[in-house]
């Protein structure tokens, strides 16, 4: 039995530097330099065109209308019209391009994360709720959307705007500008620092909370009939409400932080106006600056704060994105230790010789589930593994497929240490029917072939007939095209198991491993399956785990596992004669079978 699966303390992990995250984000833009360049150009263009419009109006008013130059005005109007047309075009281009870039990047990110996650070791999935891992691929990436589509680009263009306006202001009245900056900048900087400190913590909490809600929801949906049968609706809905309320509280907190920060920027803008009105007026009064330049100054100053406000909003988006990418990064970080793909391992045709040499294995540290297990299976042999529940039978299978790493000892496949095998290649040749049946949503055909395009309909139908699965499939609405839902929840349990069995057969593996493959299947169907497998496995190594001794009648040799050790081994006959563990199990069963009813 296990120790409790330690949830990886991802959320308490020391935070990475923002800079690292930023670089990670930027690494996705690297090969999109051209498009980024174009989009920056378009931004500049549309910013320029945007600024040109008021300028033209001013020229029109000052130079033509004021002077009564009618023709000039007409020409100008035409120019203005074209500028607006170009403005439209450049804005369209810029908006679409940035969206395009953002989508492409997110596409890549999702794919990368997905690929990374499905390559993580099985143990990672044992320990982390699916709902939580999911949010990394879907919602967290989505949280980067804003940053990628508008964030970076806006940040850039607004900064440019800001700079431009600043230059303008300086040229217009450098003293006033200086005063303006001296008064507002320190306040702005302090405000930003305080804001950042508070908001990052809150955003992180919100993200974690969303993942929790996600996991809880996902588990509740999967276990709904249990919840209902055990009348746990009230308890669960209270729990859900509690999770939701926590989310609400964090959200309100973060809202209050933002609701202080953003209005603060606007406040600075007005505050500056008040000062300019007073000081500027004074300067005009004392003839330091002209009246006109004060007027202009006030106008541009308002323009100065608009990009500033925008930038601060982008900053907020950035913080939010950081909280999300932090979580994503935590997953991507588990590179070396938790990913399996070992390049360049042994790639040979599997013959089917398995040897365990003094194997010790624990799922959780020091909780040994297999203790000093040694055995050898020869090519072409049929081996049965029997033993009471929880003795470690499935675990042995898990190790043959190298789904977990052993602590001590060695495992050889075809005489080659399993560590040296190319795992993908090995697994491809193993045909494992897992104890836990899992089907995918899709149709029956896709489930039997598991999306392997090398099959045609006839082959699949023949195979189904072979194991007697055709009987129920033919009764379904669209036969092999019938869509089944996740986990095959619209099929009976036995039907699911039969499909999962057929799926393994369809892959024509070099070696069969059947872990309780017929436990939910009736005797008659089981007989068909057994006959079929016998034919298919006659020349191949096969390992069969079964609780009914009757299912293992054809085994060449039997291994009896008890509490993680192999306690007996030999042929059926030998074990009976030995009058040990196997004999006990066997005796018992034959007694029941002889007097089945009261």
């Amino acid at each position: 039995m296990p120790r409790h699966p330690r949830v990886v303390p991802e959320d308490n992990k020391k935070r990475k530097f923002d800079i690292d995250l930023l670089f990670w984000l930027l690494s996705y833009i690297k090969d999109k330099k051209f498009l980024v360049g174009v989009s920056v150009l378009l931004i500049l263009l549309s910013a320029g065109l945007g600024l040109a419009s008021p300028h033209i109006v001013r020229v029109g008013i000052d130079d033509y209308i004021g002077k009564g130059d009618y023709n000039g005005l007409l020409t100008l109007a035409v120019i203005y019209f074209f500028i607006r047309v170009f403005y439209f075009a450049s804005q369209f281009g810029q908006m679409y391009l940035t969206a395009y870039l953002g989508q492409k990047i997110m596409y890549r990110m999702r794919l990368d994360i997905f690929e990374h996650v499905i390559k993580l070791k099985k143990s990672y999935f044992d320990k982390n709720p699916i709902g939580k891992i999911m949010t990394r691929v879907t919602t967290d990436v989505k949280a980067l959307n804003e940053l990628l589509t508008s964030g970076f680009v806006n940040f850039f263009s607004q900064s440019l705007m800001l700079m431009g306006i600043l230059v303008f202001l300086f040229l217009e009245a450098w003293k006033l500008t200086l005063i303006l900056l001296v008064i507002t900048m320190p306040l702005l900087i302090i405000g930003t620092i305080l804001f950042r400190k508070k908001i990052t913590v809150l955003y992180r909490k919100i993200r974690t909370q969303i993942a929790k809600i996600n996991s809880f929801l996902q588990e509740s949906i999967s276990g709904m009939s249990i919840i209902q049968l055990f009348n746990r609706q009230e308890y669960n809905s209270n729990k859900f409400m509690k999770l939701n309320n926590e989310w609400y509280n964090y959200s309100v907190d973060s809202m209050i932080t933002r609701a202080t920060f953003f209005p603060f920027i606007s406040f600075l803008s007005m505050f500056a106006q008040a000062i300019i009105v007073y000081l500027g007026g004074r300067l005009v009064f004392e003839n330091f600056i002209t009246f006109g330049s004060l007027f202009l100054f006030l106008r541009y100053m308002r323009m100065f704060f608009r990009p500033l406000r925008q930038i601060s909003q982008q900053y907020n988006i950035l913080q939010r994105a950081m909280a999300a990418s932090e979580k994503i990064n935590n997953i991507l970080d588990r590179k070396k230790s938790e990913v399996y793909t070992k390049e360049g391992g042994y790639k040979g045709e599997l013959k089917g010789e398995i040897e365990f040499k003094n194997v010790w294995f624990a799922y959780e540290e020091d909780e040994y589930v297999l203790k000093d297990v040694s055995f050898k299976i020869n090519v072409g042999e049929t081996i049965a593994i029997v033993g009471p529940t929880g003795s470690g039978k499935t675990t042995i299978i898990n190790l043959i497929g190298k789904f977990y790493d052993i602590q001590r000892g060695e495992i050889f496949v075809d005489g080659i240490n399993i560590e040296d095998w190319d795992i993908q290649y090995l697994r491809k040749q193993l045909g494992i029917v897992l104890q836990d049946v899992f089907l995918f949503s899709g149709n029956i055909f896709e489930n039997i072939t598991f999306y392997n395009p090398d099959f045609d309909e006839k082959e699949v139908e023949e195979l189904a007939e072979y194991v007697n699965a055709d009987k129920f499939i033919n009764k379904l609405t669209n036969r092999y095209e019938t869509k089944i839902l996740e986990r095959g929840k619209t099929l009976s349990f036995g039907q699911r198991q039969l499909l999962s069995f057929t799926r393994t057969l369809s892959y024509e593996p070099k070696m069969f491993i059947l872990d309780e493959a017929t436990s939910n299947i009736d005797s008659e169907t089981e007989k068909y399956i057994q006959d079929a497998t016998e034919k298919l496995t006659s020349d191949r190594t096969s390992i069969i785990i079964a609780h009914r001794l009757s299912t293992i009648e054809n085994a060449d040799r039997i291994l009896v596992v008890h509490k993680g050790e192999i306690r007996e081994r030999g042929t059926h006959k030998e074990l009976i004669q030995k009058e040990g563990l196997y004999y006990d199990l066997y005796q018992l069963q034959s007694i029941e079978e002889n007097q089945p009813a009261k």
Partner: protein
Amino acid sequence: MIWDYLKDKKKYLFPALIFLLLVDIAQLLVPLMTKKAIDGLRQSPNMNDLLVTGLIIFGLAVSVFIFRFSWRYFLLRMAFKIVVNLRNKIYYNLLKFSQHFFGKWETGDIMARAINDMRAVQRMFSFGIVTIVDAIVLGIASLIFMFSFHVKLTLIALAPMPILIFAVWFFEDKIHRTFREVQEKFSGLQNFVQEDFSGIFVIKAFNRELNEKNRFAKENQEYVDKNLKVARLFATLRPFIMFIVGLSNLLVLYFGGKLVISGELQLGSFFAFFQYLQYMSWPMMALGFAINLYQRGKASLSRVEDITEREPIVYDRENALDVDDIDSVSLKVKDLSFKYDNANESALKNINFEVKKGESVGIIGRIGSGKTTLVKNISRLVKIPEDTIIVNNRDINDYKLSSLRNMISYVPQDSFLFSTTIRENIAYFNPDMSIEKIKKAAEIADLKDAIDDLPKKYDTKLGERGVNLSGGQKQRMTIARAILKDAPFFIFDDSFSSIDTNTEEKILNNLKDILKNKTTIIIAHRISTIKYVDKIMVLDEGKIVEKGTHEELIKKQGEYYNIYKIQELKEKIAKE
């Protein structure tokens, strides 16, 4: 539809709207004040007046700050409240939905609606409202200013507006539909991910990682495509609105300029008018944003409402009763037929049988013969026709669901466990159960030794679906869970399939006492599992083909006898 959510949130909405208005007013006042100051400067320069104006602006700045904070505070709180309520409502509804719903909906899809769509809803109810209010208030205000300033120029400025109205009308519907598609694709993505991560073991065992990545890439691409479709719409709409604003400027510049040149209008007024015209551009832009937020929110809200507005199919009827004799159960099934919504054939056909108080029934039959469906019917996990199942002499539909389920201890075929402690899993029926009772239940299910071997014993946390247990351990956990509930009616659905015969024998022996006076249904594939029952039914293709005691059925030499023979034969061969 949207107002329904705002109705009971007036105490947030109205203050928020008032503060929003105040912000807008105060903001309009600021340029007026600066204008006043400048005009004052031009006419009679006076430092005192200047100071006063400066201070007024400062005062306005402070109040705008407060107003701004306040509308956010009220409005966002409202939006969060709406979201929390909706999400709770989703969950609450899910708890009431039967297998009819879960047989059709995928987990990832439901989750996408509860999390992802909520975000759009939240934005609609917060920033959506703000931008709409902004657009309206500022739009009207600047219209008023403009009209009061110069009617003719204003009319000129408004000339291109019909085009805008047409464009908005044209785009709105498109945008709504495309958003819905985007959200649906997101659901697809979420589903895919949830499923692949749940089935990761199979993917690994079949070495299908690369293949799954490619399949994911396809889903991913579709989602991106839909998003780009939206992007195209917005990249058109928003600049188009700006283009209209530009047209409006152009017309004013040209025709207004003409008026000035012809002397009908003073240059100063014309200049001032232009200033007001600039105020128009913000509400126009806000309009673009508002459409975005609103359509997005509406599309998502309708997806959420697919769940929140759905009525459960299995529910307590009015005046539903508690089961009166909760200590014993008799059951009568009369002409029960049942068909799954998406199936061709009925899963159950004219089922008739009776179980007396304290009796036990074994059900055996081929895979897919309807055994599970039958017990699902009896526990009303699906909707069943009137007067087909009678429990304690009353139609099962008359009872309250909670009361009915309180009297059933059900061990489902799928050994589903929750990711909490062993203790909580066993005591799932009642978390306050004493540890002694939990231990007792574990002992009966032959789990005691296994749990005692664990360092944390009963406080050991399980992974999702109990991944860190062996198949047999999981199954025994579900047996222990049902034992602890100790209801008068036990249902075992293939509950010993992953347990070795030795242990099964032990558990069945332990159960004998407990089940003595209880009504019991045991579904099994092995004859050995149902050997203690009072009568046996053989199901085939949804019909009861045989009924009777073991001896009777053996004598009959029918279906049951065949199964018996197959199993006996195998045992014989095994024995040599």
